[in-house]
């Protein structure tokens, strides 16, 4: 390790930095430990970040991500939004598919129609329901040709929305919104994603795919900004086991390891890997969902409040996890764009005061040491979930609450939640778009958390709906803050912490940043020799 430290010190010296930067332009191979094996590289059928990490390098979207995760022009060099927020007009840049054919507005129309076609079965299709007729197309009630997208000419694309939608540009930056090579898809069928057949618009092309072994992408010479791409190629290894990824990173077999660091090894990694350990806040929330349906013990708001009051979140985020997570007293993660604020009212109370209040509430609800409340707490299989559940159960015991812990594998866990068969359940909400709407809508009418938890608040629903259509940013942030406060004042859930991303990135790598949505575009990455 001493050698490693020395090498690091050397690397950081100015002379070496100058040398490094001058050699970075020569290009090289980046070796990436990817979390898992992609099930597909069809950008409209992918689902996990281990898949979109690759498809976003292969397919540019109208809107792209910068290295810091912000939105920048991609295949669209500019766009205009009409005053009523319902018409988006995109001007496409001159760009080519990897076979030399031009990328046209027609390719974008083709892709959006395919995205909403029922047989594509895209997971995120509801994000695009704002497009005129999209829901009808997606449910098979209308022909894809009736979708509100049109190519005015090869360079001009118009998208008609049925109502203003604040997060729409975010949705267009996602993998599934990428224009697709219709000239290839129309002739090749489902095989079009194979290496050698796949046509790309992004900075890289698919060169090799050995299932469960590696995926190699090479620089696309026809990419419109190819001269700014430093890497020659990049190899993605599907490494699920975090310990193996750590070993391979330590032996320099990997430049980047995306498969986290086990929490049990985190302090070791902090001491020994130093700069390589990259931790940053994520737009994701770890919380306990309450089943608030009539007849359930947690239908009573005062019990939900009491359970919230006594949980010492700092013990969980700092002592049990200790990877830089922030305790949360809110639902929408702090790092989410859009400026939603607010917290549970007791957030800055001292623990004594919280305990007194909690015990009072339980007493009012008719529970206490003589008549303990019996609760079940479900979590899916993972060491950290178990540690947290045990800690929370111990904290609740102070209120005379007896907790039965129920552990199950993920499929069973989520199916129980989806069917409302739980009292308290561990839940991880990862953002699909970096917008508070993504979280708030889950608890609003028709949302997934609403269906699972049984929570209902008409005022909340109205505020969420209003915020979606509000075009003024400040007013929108206000509406969403108000909406969230309803949820928090109702103690509809028990937030624990905002997630962080934990990755290992070699100090030789440049152009890589931690970002709220955990996107790290390959086209900006450099390797210093």
């Amino acid at each position, binding site marked *: 390790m001493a050698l490693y430290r020395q090498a690091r010190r050397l690397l950081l010296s100015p002379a070496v930095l100058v040398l490094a930067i001058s050699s970075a332009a020569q290009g090289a191979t980046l070796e990436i430990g990817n979390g898992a*094996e*992609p*099930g*597909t*590289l*069809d950008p409209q*059928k992918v689902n996990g970040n281990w898949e979109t990490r690759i498809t976003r390098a292969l397919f540019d979207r109208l809107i792209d991500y910068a290295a810091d995760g912000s939105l920048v022009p991609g295949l669209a060099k500019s766009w205009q939004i009409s005053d009523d927020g319902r018409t988006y007009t995109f001007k496409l840049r001159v760009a080519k598919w990897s076979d030399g054919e031009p990328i046209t507005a027609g390719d974008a129309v083709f892709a959006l129609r395919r995205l909403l076609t*029922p*047989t*594509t*079965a*895209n*997971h995120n*299709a*509801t994000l695009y329901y704002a497009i005129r007729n999209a*829901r009808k197309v*997606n*449910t098979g009630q209308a022909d894809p040709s009736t979708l509100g997208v049109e190519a005015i000419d090869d360079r001009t694309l118009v998208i008609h929305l049925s109502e203003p939608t604040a997060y729409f540009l975010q949705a267009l930056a996602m993998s599934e919104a990428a224009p697709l090579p219709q000239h290839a898809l129309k002739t090749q069928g*489902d095989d079009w*994603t*194979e290496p050698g057949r796949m046509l790309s618009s992004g900075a890289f092309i698919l060169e090799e795919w*050995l*299932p*469960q*072994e*590696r995926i190699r992408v090479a620089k696309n010479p026809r990419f419109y900004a190819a001269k700014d791409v430093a890497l020659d190629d990049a190899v993605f*290894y*599907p*490494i*699920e*086991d975090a*310990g*193996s990824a750590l*070993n*391979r990173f*330590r*032996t320099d*077999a990997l430049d980047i390891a995306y498969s986290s660091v086990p929490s049990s090894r985190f302090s070791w990694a902090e001491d020994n890997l130093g700069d390589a350990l990259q931790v940053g806040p994520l737009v994701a929330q770890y919380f306990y969902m309450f089943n608030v349906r009539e007849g359930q013990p947690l239908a009573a708001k005062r019990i939900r409040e009491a359970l919230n009051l006594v949980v010492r979140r700092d013990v969980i985020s700092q002592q049990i996890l200790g990877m830089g997570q922030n305790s949360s007293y809110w639902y929408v993660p702090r790092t989410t764009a859009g400026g939603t604020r607010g917290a549970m009212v007791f957030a800055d109370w001292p623990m004594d005061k919280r305990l007194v209040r909690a015990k009072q509430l339980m007493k009012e609800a008719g529970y206490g040491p003589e008549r303990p409340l019996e609760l079940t707490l479900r979590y899916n299989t993972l060491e950290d979930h178990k540690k947290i559940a045990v800690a929370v159960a111990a904290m609740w015991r102070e209120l005379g609450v007896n907790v039965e812990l129920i552990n199950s*594998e*993920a*499929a*069973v*866990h*989520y*199916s*129980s*939640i*989806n069917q409302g068969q739980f009292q308290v359940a561990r*839940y*991880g*909400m*990862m953002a699909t778009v970096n917008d508070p709407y993504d979280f708030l809508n*889950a608890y609003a009418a*028709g949302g*997934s958390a609403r*269906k*699972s938890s049984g929570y209902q608040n008409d005022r909340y629903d109205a505020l969420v709906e209003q915020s979606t259509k509000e075009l003024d940013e400040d007013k929108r942030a206000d509406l969403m803050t108000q909406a969230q406060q309803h949820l928090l004042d109702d103690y509809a859930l028990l937030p624990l912490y905002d997630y962080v991303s934990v990755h290992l990135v070699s100090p030789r790598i440049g152009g890589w940043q931690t970002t709220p949505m955990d996107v790290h575009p390959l086209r900006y990455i450099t390797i210093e020799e």
Partner: protein
Amino acid sequence: MLSYILKRLLMAIPTLLIVITISFFLMRIAPGGPFDGERQLPPEIEANLMAAYHLDEPLPMQYLRYMGNLLQGDFGPSFKYKDFSVTDLIAQGFPVSLELGFWAILLALMIGLPLGVIAALKRNTAVDYAVMGTALAGIAVPNFVIAPLLALVFGVTLAWLPVGGWNGGAWQNMVLPVIALSIQQIAYIARMMRASMIEVLGSHFIRTARAKGLSESKVILRHALQPALLPVLSYLGPAIAGIITGSVVIEQIFGIPGIGRYFVQAALNRDYTLVMGTVVFYGALIVLLNLIVDLLYSVLDPQIRYDD
């Protein structure tokens, strides 16, 4: 002999049919489905997905559809690995698992058999205790302890061998996983060989051979070894089927593109078609290897014959 083989193969058909049918319905009884994830899918999307995989049809209909496709050799598409059919996945992963398993079994036999014989000959001596003690440790320490330990010592600390990856089957990448796979097998085979050797050495025909004045090495090599191998052989059938179909632990720790992971992951993901594919494949392999073992019996033991 030939008619015996044919009879056994014909008998395998109803066996496999029962295995397939039970697995098919057991899988569907298990709670949770392939699309139950962190976020409940909107009903419109779930309906599209269910339709895409024919999961919206009644279960008996799905069963008939599956059996119909299976008869044509079509295992269907994987739910999770959408770009691949189940046949593709098995066809790509099996050669890797087979290669790794072959070397592991070979290593296990080459070390386990002599160790067992030595322990039997030196029964109740320090040598015997040392061999059997080590073997017991080999059985007791699970794969998921041995494999990371090997990777840490020989990969990270000593840096003699790569800690993971397959690299197209380069021998350097194979050494650690082969050792990790074979350690338990060495232990099992050594213990079994010892027990069976001791039993054979106590039998009448060995006493007769010794009484004839044969040298001890002739007694052991010509007379004792062959019958002593029989119990090991019957263990090897299912053991080989287990090893050449990979190990999820070894594959994940060393990053090996075999099929072992599918057995576990497919079940956890409720990837119905892939679960069925692995079950059918494993079932057929077991049937085949058991048949081969039974045929080898007749080679090792002249008392066993399969004539009509």
